[in-house]
């Protein structure tokens, strides 16, 4: 799994790839962290967990990234080293989009006081992509700076 920061006139975009849906979510989360901080220390901070539920795959990615930003503000930490487990809707839903998607996330919360970081305001749907590729999954997300 990996991510790249992509050009955008005013904001910043993250393109993430990974062999599985879970890995591409986590990579997008790590890309969000990288967009806020150039030099992320390898140690420090405690891991925390949270859950997200949404009506579809793309909405789940949106809400997951929104929650990372929310957790950053209320815990005063930068969430890094993201890990994600996804529970797809029960089989039998025709397109997989009609049931509820759920996600369990964990991140290492680096205290903001210990690093030099800048603010990303929010996740956007603008130009958002979440698609299966020959080698796995690809996500593209524009964040408001």
């Amino acid at each position, binding site marked *: 799994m990996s991510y790249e920061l992509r050009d955008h006139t005013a904001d910043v975009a993250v393109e993430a790839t990974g062999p599985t849906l879970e890995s591409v979510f986590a990579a997008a989360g790590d890309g969000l962290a990288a967009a806020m901080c150039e030099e992320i220390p390898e140690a420090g901070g405690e891991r925390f967990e949270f859950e997200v539920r949404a009506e579809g795959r793309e909405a789940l990615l949106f809400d997951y990234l929104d929650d990372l930003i929310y957790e950053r503000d*209320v815990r005063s930490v930068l969430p890094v080293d993201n890990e994600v487990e996804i529970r797809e809707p029960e089989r039998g839903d025709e397109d997989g989009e009609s049931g509820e998607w759920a996600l369990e996330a964990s991140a290492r919360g680096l205290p903001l006081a210990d690093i030099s970081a800048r*603010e990303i305001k929010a996740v*956007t749907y603008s130009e958002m992509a979440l698609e299966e590729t020959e080698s796995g999954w690809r996500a593209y997300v524009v964040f408001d700076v």
Partner: protein
Amino acid sequence: MTDNDAGDTYEAGEVTLQKVRDYVWEIPREGDMRVPARVLASEELLDQIADDKTLEQLQNSTHLPGVRKYNVCMPDGHQGYGFPVGGVAGIDAEEGCISPGAVGYDINCGVRMMKTDLTYEDLKGREEELLDALFANIPSGLGGGGVVEGDIDTVEAILDRGMEWALEEGWAVEEDLAHCEDEGVRHDSDPSKVSQKAKDRGKNQIGSLGSGNHFLEVQRVTDTYLDDVADAYGLEEGQIVVLIHCGSRGLGHQVCTDYLRDIEKAHAGLLDQLPDKELAAAPAGSQLAEDYYDAMCASINFAWVNRQLIMHRTRQVFEKVFGNDWESMGMDLLYDVAHNIAKKETHTVEGGEERELYVHRKGATRAFPAGHEEVPGAYLNVGQPIIIPGSMGAGSYVLRGGEDSMDLTFGSTAHGAGRTMSRTQAKKDYWGGDVQDELEQEHIYVKAQSGATVAEEAPGVYKDVDEVVRVSDALGIGDKVARTFPVCNIKG
């Protein structure tokens, strides 16, 4: 790439703009566009506007139901998310819709300018002392806390009463309210429409700059243009002023996010008609349209208090540095204007009909002319002040609402210089330390929490603010009153 015809059209890839008159370009209705789109720009600015997705986003914004006349892109417009930055849309408040994405995440991001009686001569030689004192005392960056450490009750009181809360608590004087758009309170606010999540994010950011393009800048007035208006505003050459640019912080960002998601789920049918999911809109009269409007108004109040607390703290810093009280240094608020906002306003639309509209201004400033009933009493005879911040290496401007703004732009003008270069590219081209050194050669002192912010906000990444303001002035939507130049700048 763009081909520039010197004639009556401008070719921007697949889009052809027709020249209506000097600085007014129109993209005629086609496909699902409900009204034409207009760009207000010189050819120089149009070359930049046509270079990213601004025009596509502007066209997309005309798909929103209930748009009236035309959607307009200001001279400083650039690509945003969904709705372009610098975009203005007047959307019918009965038959149309309201779109959180067309306001933006940073609800009531805006600018205020505080005057002083100090002159540049008084400040010379003490710039670094003042810079350090401001930086040490005004919360900025990520996790820097706020001027006020509040609880949920505090947040709710601010959401409910805006600057009136600040007045009650001793953070403002009555004159501050009289010199703020809407006197610093949106009475349509309803704190119960703001989520717990948003309030949680807001409570430790009350009175903080944040980061990105937000800043506090001490400036000197270098030029005045309309002497009678400059007099009415109390501006003269050599005078020191303070400009504060920030918004509603995490609270406003969360409100936009929450309603975007709720609207996406509740009004999927409308969303399916729109070319960009970020344009999601609630139909006028729906519960979500009402709720979002009330929550947005609450966030507007929060942003006004945010800027007020920063201004209050700035007064205290000046008191310490200059050993005088702020009243005797004439540290009075000139004006506070929002540039990310949707407001119910009455405008004349097609066929001369008067309609109540949700005027969406995203990266655009209200610019009501002299005599308009919503201009505060202090400025009723000259028009409302408009504050246009430039980059930290260039001048900023004070304009006044122009006579033609009601006809051309739903009473709006530009909001800044507008970016031309991405943040990722800026960090490749610039190094924060070098930018700081170069600015210091020009006697501009900059201090930031993050060196990367300085690189991302380097003067070279912005459009020419002089050209933006020249076009605004030539169109008569915002007339040039005064120009200022940076002295000290702090940012996140």
